[in-house]
Structure formats: C-alpha cells, structure tokens
C-alpha cells in the first residue's frame, strides 16, 4: 500500500522583501486510493504546498519531511519525484513553444516508464483519453499550452494524469476558471484515473463545487500556512454555507 506522508512541513520563499515563511507546520498522510481535499482562502499557501511536493526550486523546506513509501522525497530532483509516481496538475500550466503535445506526451511517458511506449497502444490510448476529455484531435499537433484557453490547459493537465498514471496526484485548483461542462469533463477524468490506477489525490480547491463531482474522503481547511481543521465530506458542506470567516483568516495572516 503506497503512502505519501507530509510531516511538520515548514517552507520559505525568497521575495524581493526578503525571506517569507509560508508553510508553518503541515501534517498530512495520504494513502493510495484516498481523496483529500484541501480548501483554503487565496494566499493561504495551497500552491506552495503543491509546488513543494513537486520540488519547485523557488521554495525552500526549512523543517519537516515528505516521504513516499518511506523514501525521502525532498532529496529527489523534480524529475525523480515524477518518476517515483508523484504528479502535479498545475494551477497555471506553462507554455512550451515549439514542442507539440504529441512529442511532449511521448517524451514524458518514455521518461516515466523508462522505455518508449508501444506505438500501437500508445496512439490509441492518447486518442481515447483526448476524446474522453473532449479535446479536439488537433490539440495533439499544437504546441504545449500555447494559445490554449484556461479550460484547455486544465484538460491538458488531466490528459497527462490519465496517460502518465502516477500513484499520487496533486491537483492545484484544477477547477478554477472552468465552466460547469468543463468541470464535469475534468472531474470524470480524475475519477477515471482513480478507477483505473487507484491513485491517491490531493485535491486543492478554493471552492466546493468540484466536490459535487469528485467525492473526498477527507477535507482539510488550510489557513495561513497550516491545516486549521479537518474532517469528512461534511466539512465541505459547512464551508459551503459559512465560508472561511470563522477561521479568522485575516487574523491568522496578520499573525505571520
């Protein structure tokens, strides 16, 4: 049974104004097959957590651990983490001029599997996943994320999730900016990936509406760089009604 553990994680970022502490002691255990929703107001550090798990060089871990099946993730390079089975669907996917989606997907698949995928099944898999995500065939020959709308970028992230088959996926506000149709399509993609590989999901969101389509096992409320409260799906319902006000977001931020 695969498990991703985050223990007492403290993370700083260098800004023009100097070092800022953003994560202030995060503890989280995600087993394969579980869905953990992380909900929190803007600026609470959700993306910082996502980027830190993926190994973005801007974020410095000053304390704590991230373990994947007991292995120290923090010692791994960004690509090693991906090959170890971690996946980050980014809030703002990056454009790669001159690199087609087809070329990119094949290169990534080859890197993750350690060998090139069999041509026949791969082409079929890509086509099928794209069609499931209601992506036009023409996307395959477009450059990665270049000129994609917000919704197209998010679909492209979930396409990669389906094809690369990680053990754990962090979805950073994959729902933001999606209309309800796109939200359903993207959610179905995540559910399909869960059904086929039983992956563990860290679903970061600002809103509760994606939780109508992806049912979390656990809900964590993230405020000012740490988890302020956790519970089951009912916590999301409560957030839906009450918002984040009762966590004294402003005070928590001011206490930094």
């Amino acid at each position, binding site marked *: 049974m695969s498990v991703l553990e985050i223990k007492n994680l403290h993370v700083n970022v260098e800004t023009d104004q100097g070092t800022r502490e953003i994560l202030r002691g995060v503890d989280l255990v995600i087993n394969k097959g579980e869905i953990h929703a992380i909900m929190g107001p803007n600026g609470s550090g959700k993306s910082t957590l996502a980027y830190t798990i*993926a190994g*973005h060089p801007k974020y410095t871990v000053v304390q704590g651990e991230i373990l994947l099946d007991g292995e120290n993730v923090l010692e791994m390079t960004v*690509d090693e983490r991906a090959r170890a089975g971690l996946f980050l669907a980014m809030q703002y996917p*990056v454009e790669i001029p*001159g*690199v087609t989606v087809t070329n990119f997907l094949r290169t990534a698949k080859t*890197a993750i599997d350690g060998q090139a995928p069999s041509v026949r099944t791969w082409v079929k898999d890509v086509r099928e996943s794209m069609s499931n995500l209601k992506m036009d065939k023409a996307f395959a020959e477009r450059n990665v994320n270049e000129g994609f709308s917000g919704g197209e970028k998010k679909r492209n992230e979930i396409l990669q999730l389906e094809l690369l088959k990680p053990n754990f996926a962090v979805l950073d506000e994959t729902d933001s900016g999606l209309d309800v149709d796109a939200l359903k399509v993207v959610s179905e993609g995540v559910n399909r990936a869960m059904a086929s590989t039983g992956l563990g999901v860290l679903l970061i969101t600002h809103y509760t509406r994606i939780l109508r389509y992806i049912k979390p096992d656990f809900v964590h409320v993230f405020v000012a760089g740490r988890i302020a409260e956790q519970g089951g799906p009912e916590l999301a319902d409560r957030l839906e009604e009450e918002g984040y006000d009762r966590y004294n977001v402003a005070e928590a931020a001011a206490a930094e």
Partner: protein
Amino acid sequence: MTSTAMPTAEQHGLVAHTDGAFVPVQTRSERFRSVNVDDFAPVNGREHEWKLSPVAAFADLTGGELDGSRPTIETTDVAGVAISWIARTDARIGSAGIPEERASANAWSTFGESLLVSVTGEDEKVAVITRSGLGSAPRAAHTVIEAAPFSRALIVLRGIGDARLSENVEILVGEGASLTVVSLQEWSDDSVHLASQFARLSRDSFLKHIVVSLGGKVVRVNPSTHLAEQGADIEALGLYFADAGQHLEQQVFVHHDAPHTKSRVTYKGALQGSGARTVWIGDVLIGQKATGTDSYEQNRNLVLTDGTRADSVPNLEIETGDIAGAGHASATGRFDDEQLFYLMARGIREDEARRLVVRGFLTEIVQKIGSPELEARLNAAVEAELQGN
C-alpha cells in the same frame, strides 16, 4: 536600439524590447558602395558596419591579399540546376548589388571567376552545393544564383571544413519565380567567413532566404534584398547557435522599392557558453515608390548560460505614407526555468528538458525551410550543438 543580454539569475522568459525607440538608418539607401577595395578606408573597427564585429580576427580578409582562384565545390546533378563558371566581365555580375564595406569589396576586387548556379523549369527541385577544403589561407569568392522567370528551386550553399573566406553572393530572382536559398555555415572551429549576399527580386517573384550559422569562429553573413519590382516578396529567415568563443553576426537589409512588396524577416538565435556572441541588425527601408508595403521583422535570442552577449538592432526607415503595415520586434531572454520545471515535473530529465525547450525555440525556423531532408539534418545539427559538440 541595442538590447544586450547580460543575464542574471532573476531573468525569466523573453524580455520584449519591442516598444522602445529605434534609431532610423536614414542613410541606408545612400550608403557608400564600390566594387573597388581601395575606395574604402582601412577598417579600424569604429565604422558603423564593423563596430560590433571582432575586426582584428580577420584583418587579412578586410585588408590583405586574397586568393581568388576557383574553390573546389561538390554538387550533385539536378535537372534544371546548371552549375558553371563565368568570367568577371559577365553582365550579370554586379546586377543584384555591390559592396558596402571593405571585406566585400576586397573579395570583389580579387575573385577570378564567378560560380553560376542557373535555375530553370517550373518543377520543384533541390540542389546542394558544398564547399569544403577551402583551407586556412585567406580567399575570395563570387557566386551568382539566377532563377529564370517562373522557375522554382531550393538551393543550398553549404560550407564545411576550414575556411578564411570573404565572398559575395548575388541572387537574381526572375519574374514570377519562386526560389529558396539556404546559406548553411558549418565551418570548422577556427574558420572565418564574411559574406555579403545581394538579392534582386523581379515582379511577383518570391525568395525564401535562410541563413543558418552553426560552425566557425567568426561568421558574418549579411543579406541585402532589393524588392525592385511590384509584387516582390521576401521571407528572410535565420537560425544561429553560438557556443563559447563564437561570433555569429548577420546584418539584414530589406529595401522595399516598388509598390505592393512584402517582407517577413525572422531570425532566431541561441547562445551558450562563455564568450558566445551574436549580432543581428535588421534594416528595413520602405522607399517612396513602395506604396502598399507590408513588412515585419523580428529577432529573438535565447540565452542558455552566463557570459554571453546578444546584440539585436532593428531599424525601420519609411519614406512613404501609404503602407499596408510595418513592424518590428526584438527580444533577448534567459532560458525559462518555469518551462524546465514543467517538463521535469513530468519525469523528463534536465538535459533532455533543456534540449526540448531549445529545439522548440528554434524549430519555428527549421520548419519553414520546406525540405524534410534538410530539416532533419538541421535538427541533428542543432542537437549536436546542444550536446556541446
């Protein structure tokens, strides 16, 4: 406007310098011209056409005696592409343009015969002319590429091996002809190559002109295009990859001199390693007769390491009020670490991710060449550059 990249770790992505003021050339059409080397003063490096070049590295080519004998060339027989040598007195010589600087005039003064590449026939064809073994003594050369009216061809003029060469290339594109000329510099590490290319485009003709500079210590290829008759259309493309200690330069000039002429200039370069140096100057002159002109030029440089310098200088001079469009863009940017992170977050190793990004950046040019074979060769050559060969 000069944008000089001395990148720092903070720099990300492409920094556009598009909106700054630029300095019009004003005198470009009246620049001094002569076929006689003695009409030019000895080069001291302060002249506007030399001030960004390492003139001491090739004083022999601007001032010394040159060997003007026939170089050995290799080519394959292609129907509709005839290759021969013609005398200095041939009427075609000087009909596309004449030298504007001393290295060009020195070559003009000393070449013995000119290579003539004569294109006929309306079917598409490809001819590769390779020059190798030019040696390390200073040389002069002259080439005329002539495309008959309505003819079509892709001509590759390729240089490999050692060379210290100053040369002039004239390109005559006949009415309605469609010609692609690729000037491919893959010289050895110590080579110096200074080239002036002059193209004259007749009515409704199209020239795709591509400068690819990869190998050589100093490579300076300056293409001038005279859109002399109405409907003439030039697509000028360039791709260069400068390694440590390499100087790659191109001074591009497009002269719109007739109604409804069109130009698109796109040069892209990558710089890697200490002392890697590139220069791009793009002069566009839209003359009084050039009503309805449509013109756009751009240069983009991708800086891969510290210690490099890219100069990028677009100039636009407009003498008529009645144009369809004219614009320019110039940007020099550091390798984008966010792109690297994105690719690595999908399991791709750093070196491969870097290669993908750089290849992606340059591929816009490679894809426009229009010959799958040549595209594959260039991709391989870019790959070799990235491996640090």
